[in-house]
């Protein structure tokens, strides 16, 4: 190995070490942390914390909520991004520039700014502490809409026009021609949407109040806030569970994640 590779090995190790530590604590017995270097190997490994998590503990409930919210929100988010992006790219709709400008503004501007209005809106609708409150804010994804609009602008409209002259309805054109040709674009939108939804924190925090409605990030963060006797084993087992889907998405879609990042997904 040359010198660059050695230095990079050190960087890579530093970057992964905290995550290995997380996994190690989650596989240890009891709730205490291994503190001294020699404790790292002592005590053996056990799946106790994961068993507790799977057998109906609150952290298991958080995980189910996260899976449910992500499972429902992301497909809808993908579909809406494709539909809105396609209309913006192809349709001669009034106020197209306004929509594009708004989407760009929401992409760049800090989400935290809309937190209080969002809370008040859901309070007025009587939807606080419901799955709707967890899912609805994810559906309109400015990055997805803009990315797909750009994607369709660079895609030739010939096929669509041919189908339309053959008498196909706009809906049929969208489902049978546009969507099947959108795979690469939707993969970028989908994996970035998955990451933002799965990792979402601020709005799930303020729009829910009961423990049974918490998602994984929110539930774990609130558990860690209780100053007395933090059960580190359970917490870091929960963190590991929160990390695994991200790891899988990363392994499968790293290229799409990087592309989304370079195109400015506002994560």
């Amino acid at each position, binding site marked *: 190995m*040359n010198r*660059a*590779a050695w*230095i*990079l*090995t050190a*960087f*890579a190790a530093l*970057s*992964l070490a*905290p*995550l290995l*530590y*997380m996994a190690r*604590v989650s596989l240890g017995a009891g709730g*205490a*942390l*291994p*503190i*001294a*270097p*020699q404790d790292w190997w002592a005590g053996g490994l056990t799946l106790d914390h994961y068993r507790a998590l799977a057998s109906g503990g609150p952290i298991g409930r958080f995980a189910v909520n996260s899976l449910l919210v992500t499972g429902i929100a992301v497909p809808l988010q993908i579909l809406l991004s494709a539909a809105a992006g396609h209309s913006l790219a192809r349709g001669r709709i009034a106020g197209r520039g306004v929509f594009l400008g708004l989407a760009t503004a929401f992409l*760049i*501007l*800090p989400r*935290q*700014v809309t*937190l*209080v209005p969002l*809370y*008040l809106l859901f*309070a*007025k609708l009587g939807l606080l502490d419901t799955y709707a409150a967890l899912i609805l804010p994810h559906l309109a994804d400015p990055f997805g809409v803009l990315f797909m609009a750009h994607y369709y602008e660079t895609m030739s409209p010939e096929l669509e026009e041919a189908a339309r002259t053959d008498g196909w309805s706009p809906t049929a054109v969208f489902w049978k021609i546009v969507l099947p040709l959108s795979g690469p674009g939707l993969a970028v939108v989908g994996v970035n949407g998955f*990451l933002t939804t*799965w*990792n979402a*924190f*601020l709005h799930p925090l*303020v729009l829910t109040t009961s423990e049974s409605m918490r998602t994984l*990030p929110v539930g*774990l*963060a609130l558990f*860690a*806030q209780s100053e007395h006797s*933090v059960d*580190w084993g359970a*917490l*870091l087992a929960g*963190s590991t569970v*929160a*990390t695994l889907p*991200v*790891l899988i*998405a*990363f392994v499968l879609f*790293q290229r799409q*994640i*990087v592309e989304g*990042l*370079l195109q400015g997904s506002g994560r």
Partner: protein
Amino acid sequence: MNPLRPDLTHWVGAANYARALGSLAFWRALRTTAIFVVGTLPLTLGLAYVVAALLSRVRRGETLFRAAIFFPATLSMVVISLVFKSLYAEEGLLNGWLAALGLSRVHWLQDPRLALASIMAMDVWASVGYYAILILAGRKTLPPEQLEAARLEGLSPLDVERRIVFPHVKPVILFVVLLNTIRSFQIFIEVFVLTRGGPLESTLTLVYHLYERAFYHFEMGYACAIAFLLLLFVGAILLLQRRLLSRAPSEASAS
């Protein structure tokens, strides 16, 4: 103010803004943000630049190194904060190592002089990979012929880096500077999990202040004033970025 009861809500003009601009917490939060930017940016940017340079130089295993270094950037900030809270804990790994070396414990998150620095260290760890990927992508848009030509002219690797690569990736670096600044204005999860703004408000950030006012004290009007000021700050930074970026090409052609 109770926004769900319009009959109890009344027009206060600029009172909420006056209160924000006159409150100690608001200025403390701004100072925290400033310290955060000044403290993390040089380190994060320097490390990210070095990592990107090394990644572009390594002959084998670039994909693997890149993945390992970039992965933390895709993680939930909650997970990162939890792991670091366990590392920083009184009975945590860092103090365990200090004890093994015969040193006394450090109160990483309880000492008002240290808490912000501890969060900043975590932020550097969490963002180097992200910025390294951006800078690496910038480097890769440099035509290889240009590098080859420079090498044939007898420029040393350091000169190639300084005279050709660095000017080429300068816009990306400027972008990273602004992105880091904007993100520093928005810090919340780290503070929520690790310190809740304490000790002695030493880690109070603008968004944490907003959250606390809105959802612990239900001062929605005041919180919205803070949100609007946040919007103004970020907007101003973005305008500044535009000015700087539009000036960059003319500079390049002049030199």
